[in-house]
């Protein structure tokens, strides 16, 4: 059996090695992230059969939990790790040609460390360790948002940094409270001891921790930084921030709420919060004329939808929510990547400047269209089974409040469809200035085609993924088996 700790250790080691590689050969540096993420992807695929049988628990340093730190590689963690390495691999291929200016070596190092931090967050079984990896994720994204060093990038990076730092401060206070109450930091150990104290004592630590993680996962009302940061970052980074970073934040929120605390009284509150985030995100996206801001607001909306699906806490809705999450990673990644080259070509982020792009960059425009259709939830793309599972699962609950919320979900889908079709109309049915047809570079095209194939494949054979997601959702909901497998 391969050891899952390599998923973190190998990219970290390679990132430390980059300066040495750089002094040996400058050209080789660009391929280090590709190699590291390819390695991670292969490792994840090799781990699937073992993990489906039994979650793998790795005790680091040989100390048994709760005394040492442990990694918990269940289906959910592996799903996220695989998603991070797959999306990361595709985007790193895209950045080979997209990132040409500036401190390129540092870009590749930061990019690799960002993904390592994300992998650490989803695999760890220790609360403070989660905080540490979360900080790696956050700090590298602050730096990458400001990568171009232009006015908008610096300004949004500052906003992001201030809000993110206050958020992680709150998270740390919450962790301090938890340690004071339970005297342990191991998530399984806390989950086991949670019933021994009064629920009212846990309220403040939970609010602090959820608020702290909520900043990174862009839950309303903590998402003021997101539209700025995601729209001013380089497009490859926007794709990763939208596709990976906020999802990882959402994973941490779900892990803490479901597994560590497991207080089911507040799930409905999160469902409301999700719907509110969804509606506000979609309405703001509708009002945008800047394409990257529109995509950023649409990410807020999608996060709200996924939060709503997870908060309903039935096997069907969580499976649907995770399906939507996978779909969001691929399609929002595809949208940002294709928008990146269209912006590069037209020189402006305004939607009106994309008129007639369908003739000038046919493949890139096709990629954008596929991403948009999938995000709205049209068959045969990956968005359809996700939304279908969420809606049908929610209606199965048969509660009046939830039925109303489902109505709002459908309404928001209509809004989403409207603004995406507006862009597609501009791409294909409006005349632009008659420029020459010229495609994006080969590496970028490869990345976009790979994502398109993934989206269509998941849309046509949803069962392939849904089975795995179903065991991932029981991993998230079944608190007792989590505790049992860590503290055996």
């Amino acid at each position, binding site marked *: 059996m391969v050891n899952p700790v390599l998923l973190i250790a190998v990219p970290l080691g390679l990132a430390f090695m980059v300066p040495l590689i750089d002094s040996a050969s400058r050209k080789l540096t660009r391929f280090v992230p590709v190699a590291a993420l390819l390695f991670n992807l292969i490792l994840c695929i090799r781990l699937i059969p073992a993990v489906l049988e039994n979650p793998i628990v790795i005790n680091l340093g040989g100390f048994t939990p709760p005394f040492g730190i442990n990694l918990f590689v269940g289906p959910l963690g592996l799903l996220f790790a695989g998603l991070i390495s797959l999306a990361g691999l595709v985007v790193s291929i895209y950045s080979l040609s997209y990132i040409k200016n500036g401190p390129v070596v540092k870009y590749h190092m930061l990019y690799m460390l960002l993904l390592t931090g994300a992998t650490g967050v989803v695999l760890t079984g220790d609360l403070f360790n989660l905080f540490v990896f979360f900080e790696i994720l956050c700090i590298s994204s602050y730096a990458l948002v400001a990568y171009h060093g232009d006015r908008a990038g610096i300004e949004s990076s500052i906003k992001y940094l201030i809000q993110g730092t206050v958020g992680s401060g709150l998270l740390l206070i919450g962790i301090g409270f938890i340690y004071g109450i339970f005297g342990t930091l191991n998530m399984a150990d806390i989950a086991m001891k949670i019933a021994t104290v009064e629920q*009212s004592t846990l309220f403040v630590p939970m609010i602090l921790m959820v608020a702290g993680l909520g900043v990174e996962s862009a839950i309303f009302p903590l998402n003021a930084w997101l539209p700025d940061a995601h729209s001013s970052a380089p497009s490859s980074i926007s794709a990763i921030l939208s596709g990976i970073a906020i999802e990882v934040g959402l994973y941490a929120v779900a892990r803490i709420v479901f597994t560590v605390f497991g207080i089911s009284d507040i799930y409905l509150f999160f469902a409301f919060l999700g719907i509110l985030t969804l509606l506000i995100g979609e309405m703001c996206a509708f009002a945008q004329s800047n394409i990257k801001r529109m995509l950023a607001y649409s990410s807020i909306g999608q996060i709200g939808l996924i939060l709503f699906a997870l908060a309903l806490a039935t096997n069907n809705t969580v499976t649907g929510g995770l399906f939507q999450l996978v779909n969001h990673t691929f399609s929002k990644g595809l949208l940002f990547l294709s928008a990146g080259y269209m912006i590069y070509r037209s020189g402006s982020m305004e939607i009106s400047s994309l008129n007639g792009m369908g003739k000038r960059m046919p493949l890139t425009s096709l990629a954008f269209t596929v991403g948009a259709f999938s995000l709205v939830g049209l068959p045969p793309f990956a968005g359809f089974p996700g939304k279908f599972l969420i809606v049908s699962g929610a209606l199965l609950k048969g509660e009046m409040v939830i039925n109303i919320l489902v109505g709002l979900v459908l309404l928001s889908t209509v809004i989403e469809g409207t603004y995406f079709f507006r862009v597609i109309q501009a791409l294909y049915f409006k005349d632009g200035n008659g420029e020459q047809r010229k495609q994006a570079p080969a590496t970028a095209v490869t990345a976009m085609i790979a994502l398109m194939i993934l989206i269509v494949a998941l849309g046509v054979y949803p069962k392939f993924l849904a089975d795995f997601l179903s065991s991932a959702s029981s991993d998230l909901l079944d608190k007792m088996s989590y505790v049992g497998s860590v503290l055996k």
Partner: protein
Amino acid sequence: MKSVFSLILLVVLGAGVVFTLSSIPFGSTSSDVGEYYIDSGRADTGATNIVTSVVVGYRAFDTLGEVTVLFVAAIGLGAILAAGRENEEKKKAEWEPASLVLYTGCRFLFPLILLFGAYVFIHGHLTPGGGFQGGAVIASAFLMVYLGCRKKRISRTWARNTESISGLVFVVTGLTGLAVGGHYFLSNFLPEGTLNTLFSAGIIPIIYIAIGLKVGSELTGVIDDLIEESE
């Protein structure tokens, strides 16, 4: 309206904090995990400083993450400062040279501070101190030379390579533990030796020396970047 709302929020949060703190009385709590570390920390890791045995033994993975955070910040700082510098023309500021007393004093103190920093991180498993503290002391020596001797600079390639190699040493030590020492990442595969001697505690001194060098060269790099920016 806004201030009333935030005041209410603050009062509610404050009441909640007080309520939660009442279940954590000050000065008497002692956690199971903490007691276990104090009782068996010496036997498990061979370090007499229990904080060290927690930082580099039980929770060594945290420390790997922590080193990475500092690494990320140093690269990020370099990237942000370099990104804007490209399209600016260099203008060299004329710095007044330091006085003879300052110059000589800095040069005299520099090796002593370096020695003290090295002492702090080499003895991390025996005395209060460790890699981060020692690294910070070493970086302060370089800062003093930068401020006192003005024109002296370290070689960036040298600093970058030290940083890189010491980071690699940490990861490779962990991987060696995975390969030979009972199949756990970062497990102790070296003999623990006798307590309270310099050559004890297995991999802890190796990791702390790597951390000390890494933190020292990283913080020196940060100082160098910032000083270059101010010129």
